């Protein structure tokens, strides 16, 4: 189903931007309330639920034993995938994975993988024979805008609670998956000519291009993605990068707080 982008919405978002206002009353770089819950699903070895405004996302971690790649005999593997199923919004149709869902999964995957929070050598069981394959599946249940940040948060929170099911596979005792870091994503969309943080559904509908920034514990970049039609200047990027640093640090505290519970 093609979403009609009403010109009226676009005009209204432009008018609001002139007054530095947003359609849901937030400040330009103000995020929506976030609720994070971990270890909420039986059968998943790690799981998390994230609610951000009208967006609801689950992530679950599963393990499998596989044969390592011949050129990397002592390394396990990590895969992160996202599904945008028709449950999440009336705009999503059933069928094979859409380019949007593939992009979403890959951007989250890169942020986690490139942060180095999982040591692939630690996933080795018998070099050259058996390694762990870690799979993070993200399930979007309600798309109320900015599913990228919700998915990124759910994925890392689920991963950080994962327990390796070694007993079930007869390769020793269960143990907590070592995860060294909490990479966090922050997303911005151009609305009414300027970037806003954590766009809601209407802002995505009447907005332009988006930028996703994943930042690690040390403040380093681990993944970037520019999506949709539009261009931006280095100055604009510098401004949102600074905001992203602050937002990612805040979200990392939410993950730590949930883990402490």
């Amino acid at each position, binding site marked *: 189903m093609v979403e009609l982008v009403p010109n009226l919405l676009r005009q209204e978002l432009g008018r609001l931007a002139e007054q530095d206002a947003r359609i849901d009353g937030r400040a330009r770089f103000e995020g929506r309330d976030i609720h994070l819950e971990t270890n909420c699903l039986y*059968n*998943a070895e790690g799981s998390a639920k994230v609610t951000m405004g009208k967006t609801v996302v689950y992530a679950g971690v599963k393990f499998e034993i596989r044969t390592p790649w011949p050129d990397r005999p002592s390394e396990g593997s990590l895969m992160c995938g996202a599904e945008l199923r028709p449950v999440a919004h009336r705009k999503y149709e059933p069928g094979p994975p859409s380019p949007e869902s593939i992009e979403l999964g890959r951007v989250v995957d890169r942020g986690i993988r490139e942060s180095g929070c999982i040591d692939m050598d630690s996933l080795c069981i018998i070099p050259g024979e058996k390694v762990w394959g870690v799979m993070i599946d993200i399930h979007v*249940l*309600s798309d109320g805008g900015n599913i990228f940040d919700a998915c990124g948060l759910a994925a890392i929170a689920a991963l950080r609670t994962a327990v390796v099911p070694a007993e*079930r596979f007869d390769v020793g005792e269960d143990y907590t998956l070592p995860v060294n870091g909490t990479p966090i994503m922050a997303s911005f969309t151009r609305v009414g000519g300027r970037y806003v943080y954590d766009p809601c559904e209407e802002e995505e509908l009447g907005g332009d291009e988006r930028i996703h920034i994943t930042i690690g514990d040390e403040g380093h970049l681990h993944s970037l993605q520019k999506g949709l039609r539009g261009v931006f200047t280095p100055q604009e990027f510098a401004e949102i990068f600074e905001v992203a640093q602050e937002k990612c640090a805040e979200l990392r505290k939410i993950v730590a707080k949930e883990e402490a519970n």
Partner: protein
Amino acid sequence: MGGYGDIQLLREDGLRLDGRKLDESRPVTIQAGILPAADGSAMVTHGLNVAVAAVYGPMEAHPRKIQRQDRAVIDVRYNMAPFSTSDRIRPGFNRRSREISKVTAEALESVVLVERYPRSKIRVEIEILAAEAGTRCAGITAASVALADAGIPMRDMIVGVASGKIEDTVVLDLDKAEDNYGQADLPAGILPNTGEIAFLQMDGDLSPEEFDLAMEYNFKAAKEIHEIMVEALQSRYQGGDK
């Protein structure tokens, strides 16, 4: 049904492995209106099962060939999340989920007043987030509450319940071990107000007498779960958060 092996499913004291009585259901919780993007939604936890349903519509039915001139069609998709089972499931439809989707749609078409919406479509999306035997029943219950939450007129709701047989004994609501090692499973979709049956499947081995007892248990469970369904809708619309 799985093996008929030596696995003991009933304890010396006559109770089941998890301590339940023969005619005792696992605990059920229901929340209505949990997915803001949907027109109606519900989450059902039944034991360790977690089923979520979203309803969209009534909307234009397309492609046009699925349209019915005299009524709405109900398009159900039952899907298990990759992390919902012990071994990860590869995303996408399989034969099992297609069959469950089909019979669930037919059950719901029996209670929704589909003749009020000719040429339209009502989408029902059932997502299983955690599976511990009984997901199709939890899905039907969730779908019914989600349809009611969407304000779609129905003759009655459908309650998904199941009984079965373990160690030659009829029991209500099989859990995972009982489903794997039991002798029969009888899931049913019951209309609690009219006492009619909109959904029925069975596999295994049941005598006529065992079938009667299993259905008696199913009707008892339907009555109990129906109360929880009504409470979920009441708490959403009477002094609930919205």
